[in-house]
């Protein structure tokens, strides 16, 4: 029973890292796509391409960090805060630009 519970916990942690890491990386990509043109004067299409290409590296870093991070709940919280902050800032930049 204890072994099964460990297996379930490990599986849940992996799913959290794979899915949550992707969503977190997507958040960073979205933020950079709108922030680079707004603050660094980059062309809009260039910013999208650059941040999307970097997205794979963000995802890899989040994956490796998350898999080594022991506490699943705290990790979920961190990923939630990261993603929420990114998409909130995207919304703020949109609001300011309009």
């Amino acid at each position: 029973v204890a072994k099964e519970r460990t297996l379930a916990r490990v599986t849940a942690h992996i799913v959290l890292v794979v899915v949550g890491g992707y969503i977190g990386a997507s958040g960073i990509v979205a933020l950079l796509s709108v922030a680079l043109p707004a603050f660094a004067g980059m062309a809009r299409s260039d910013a999208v391409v650059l941040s999307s290409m970097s997205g794979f590296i963000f995802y890899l870093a989040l994956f490796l960090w998350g898999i080594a991070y022991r506490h699943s709940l705290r990790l979920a919280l961190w990923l939630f805060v990261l993603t929420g902050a990114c998409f909130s800032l995207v919304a703020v930049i949109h609001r300011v630009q309009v």
Partner: protein
Amino acid sequence: MASSGESDPSFRRVMNGVHTWTGVILGMLLFAIFWTGTLAVFDKEIDQWMMPAIRLQRPVGNVVLDKQRASYAAAVADHAFTWNIVLPNDRLTVVQTLWYGMRGPEYHYDNPETGEELPVVGTLAGSGFLYPFHYSLQLRFLNLGIWLVGLAGMAMMALCVSGVIIHRKIFADFFTFRPQRTSKRAVLDLHNVAGVLGLPFHFVVTLSGLVILYALYFPSGWIPAYGGNLRAFNQEAFGSFARAKANQPGSVASLDAMASEVRRLWPDEKLASVTIYYPGDAAAYVEFNTSSAGQVVNSGNTAVFDAATGALLSRRSKLSSVMTAYRFMFGLHIVQFHHWTLRWLYFVLGLAGCVLIGTGSLFWLESRRRRPAGGGFGFRIVEALTIAGISGIIVATFSFFLVNRLLPAAIPNRASVEVWVFFSVWIASLVHAWLRPSRIAWLEQSWSIAVTALAAVLFNAVTTGDNLARALWHSHLHAIAGMDLLLLLGAAVAIFAARRIASSRVDDGAATPFRG
């Protein structure tokens, strides 16, 4: 592998777990992607082998585009969205036309001098099957295959990083190969050598492969920035021309007149391809692309003409630096530049990737088998999947080649039958691996590799007359010679492996091809 060490043992232990279990779960998917990707390096050459009708001498001088009208008329009748011509180059001696019609993609091959369609037998060959399998697994539903390949790509990068972290004597292992020690040791040495030598290639080729499809994998980039308008984004990013369809019938002016205008614009460039958007429509426009075969950055110059009048609508010769970086990664991955030495290097390093992934899985099986509770049901599943994933896909590929030379030209759905044979043989190899003891399964599948490879070479010679000696003699048949030689080499390696397995001691009832 890594025991608990002195510097941050827990992190290294976690990375060891990541490396092991990512490899066990996604190893065979990765092997299939690497194997078909390695073959796709020579996709045009495989096309020539599987389509004897296109084995022509390279044409001299410019192709007369207006002679290709019959194919254009067929595309108009087929309600195609675009009609595309690829002009002859280093690796293609005929004119290839392509459109997406009501029955899916239509590939046709025309004689560059006369414009007559060549009698190509139904086959998807390298560029129509092995290459798309490499990135889509032929699972089109919901782009499921593309997402699985993306997941496998991310896993490959995680495997590269975790592999380096758990690997402490990286420099010493560079020079270590002990084939005469235990099979487990030899397999691990081979894994380490392939991994360390090929590490930069494996990491970069994986990353660049993912980057190609950035817009699909990370829609969160263009959706907020462009309000979900992908077309507007692509137009801005690539500076590509676009206009709406008129829904009125229209004609096409002389393509050769437009081509000479392109040659006047850029006298130093060679024409690579021509695409007509909205064939048959009054708003149709023609896009000319010049060749970028001399550089890694996969981007030539583009000129767009109004189809009806032949007037120049737009032209582009430079991309922004970010887009150039993207097209560099793109070109780095799809190897459309013409450099035979580099092309062979890609092929060899791709095979090294297959060896890396294969030996990783074999090492896990060898280690597991020795454990007291190692040979259970789950173990048998992984073992059968590994056998079918390594030797099975090779047998399936060679059967795909062989059946291409055996099927009569006239049978209906010939191309689908070939693909069906590929998947049937692959599934059969899994059933075989499940039913037979693993050592026997490896042995029999190794022999199957050798037999299918030799038969493919034999039947190519019998059905086309282009035997190895003739193919080596004529320069326009060198692609055929290369394919035959690689098949013979594959057969030789398979026979070597089979003999090695057959002579191995049957001490624990199981063996791998690398048993010493």
